[in-house]
């Protein structure tokens, strides 16, 4: 049996795959944050809770309504996205004119409410959600065993991330969005309904988080705290990548997942903190982030 850098390849590639999967979640979540931040100038602290809601809606769909995974993959983001639209219309809109830090505080309060409500109803222990039949099993690639579902998560999130990038950077709707980010007043003067755009953007960003939640449901147990700690790591990812670019969010998300996986192989003690350490180093060298523009 050959070894790579003193580590058996099964373990190495296994951890890399795990890292890639975590990276997929970092990428979708930081992308959602970036999209929301671009137009609303709000760091959506509720993002973790909305990711958790996505997983729960999928679980509810299956257990209460008998709706399967594939339908939930579409329905859950829509349902959670609608709650996002409501939040934007009734709450975030009211504080759009004051300091952006209040947006952070408001969404933090919302996250507490949502997490508390789910904890009251479902406890903290977590609910199982089984992998859909079509994606069970796996492939033996020779150097490692690839569970089908995990491969699917990586591909699905890549596709969603790239589709989002395409919409924002290459389509007409995306150009309106970017214009509204640059100068909302002027964009409005050109007859574009900026408030509607803002509402839909928030809904879309939230839907992205919920989509990640549905993807996560069969891997991690569905529980009310699943988003709470993840979101802070995603914040670090956002700081490292810089908020300026959509591509930055995607690339940093995936690569930091990989870095985390590698750390787990070579120095497991640091795996929980490696992203924060990288954040510290990036801040020292390039305060605007790897892909960000200087403020």
């Amino acid at each position, binding site marked *: 049996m050959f070894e790579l850098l003193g580590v058996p390849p099964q373990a190495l590639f296994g951890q890399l795959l795990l890292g890639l999967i975590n990276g997929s979640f970092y990428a979708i979540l930081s992308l959602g944050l970036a999209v929301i931040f671009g137009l609303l*100038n709000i760091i959506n602290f509720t993002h973790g809770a909305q990711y958790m809601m996505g997983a729960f809606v999928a679980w509810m769909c299956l257990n209460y309504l008998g709706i399967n995974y594939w339908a939930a993959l579409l329905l859950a983001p829509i349902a959670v996205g609608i709650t996002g639209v409501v939040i934007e219309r009734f709450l975030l809109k009211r*504080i759009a004119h004051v300091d952006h*830090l209040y947006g952070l505080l408001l969404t*933090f*309060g919302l996250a*507490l409410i949502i997490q508390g409500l789910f904890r009251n109803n479902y406890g903290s222990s977590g609910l199982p959600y089984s992998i859909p039949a079509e994606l069970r099993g796996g492939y033996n690639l020779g150097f490692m065993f690839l569970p089908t579902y995990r491969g699917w998560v990586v591909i699905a999130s890549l596709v969603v991330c790239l589709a989002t990038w395409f919409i924002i950077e290459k389509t007409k709707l995306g150009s309106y969005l970017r214009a509204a980010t640059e100068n909302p007043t002027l964009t409005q003067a050109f007859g574009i309904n900026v408030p509607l755009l803002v509402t839909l953007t928030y809904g879309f960003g939230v839907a992205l988080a919920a989509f990640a939640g549905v993807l996560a449901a069969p891997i991690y147990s569905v529980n009310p705290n699943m988003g709470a700690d993840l979101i802070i790591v995603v*914040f670090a990812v956002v*700081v490292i990548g810089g908020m300026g670019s959509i591509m930055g969010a995607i690339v940093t998300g995936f690569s930091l997942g990989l870095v985390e996986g590698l750390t787990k192989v070579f120095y497991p003690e640091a795996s929980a*903190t490696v992203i924060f350490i990288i954040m510290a180093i990036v801040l020292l060298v390039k305060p605007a982030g790897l892909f960000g523009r200087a403020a």
Partner: protein
Amino acid sequence: MADIASTDAPAAALAIGEVDDSTARLHRNLMIGIAAALVIAPFVAYPVFVMKVLCFALFALAFNLLLGYGGLLSFGHAAYFGMASYVSAYTAKHWGLTPELAILAGTGIAALLGLAFGALAIRRQGIYFAMITLALAQMAFFFSLQTPRFTGGEDGIQAVPRGKLLGLFSLADDRALYWLVAAVFMGGLLLIYRVIHSPFGQVCKAIRDNEPRAISLGYRSSQYKLAVFVLSAGIAGLAGATKAIVFQLASLTDVHWSMSGEVVLMTLVGGLGTVFGPIVGAIVIVSMQNFLATLGAWVTVVQGVVFVICVLLFREGIVGMIAKWIKKPL
């Protein structure tokens, strides 16, 4: 550049200007009132509860010093509070330090940690600053979780001896300990008040309100920001270290990010950028937690609702509203 405490809380805008004579007199009278309340409190209320309120009030005062007067929203103040409580609990239990030395050790560590984290965080502003402080604090949390030999892991450090003050007076009795905690609190409050109204504090406010202008006037803004950050972290540590001695316990709760959220909530309820607001906020939130303790997880929901209401309808906070009403900075 507009920051949170100055643009939005009208009360804070009042606090910027020179303190006139009548205001100074009002503040002095309030200080005397607080001191009197501290003397009476242990005889009318359960001393341990009052000590808990005082520790959190000092923590909130420290946080508000940074946000209200430095314009910096740190979302990771639990790191300084929690790490200080670990250090003070550890040194008191395993090294047998007297309580005052243990508290000093905790405060010192918190200030050092504040220096390291602050130096990194002040490189960015606004929302980024909040996210960075939060992420760095999460690092402190993972450190605490993964070093059970120092922190006791999930169990925390329990049965911390209260010891003898200066090696002479036993603090085992709640009343005896209360006077120490009251003195620490009053000292912290007076220190913060003095800092806010010193030339240093004025420069901090100038930087908060318009950093480019302050820089063009020749002030090195990052040094001022770092200094106020370290001071705030140190006082937050003082509060955490004292709490560890009071409850004879240091645990992961104190260093978890939800604690950072709680201190933000206390300050918001009391009034951002007001001198006395955080004290009122701490009283409200700690009492609320005590009364609602039987509700279990609903406490989080209630706290979240209070958060949302404060941000939407009540940005001045309780003291901020009173200040607006009597047209004097508080």
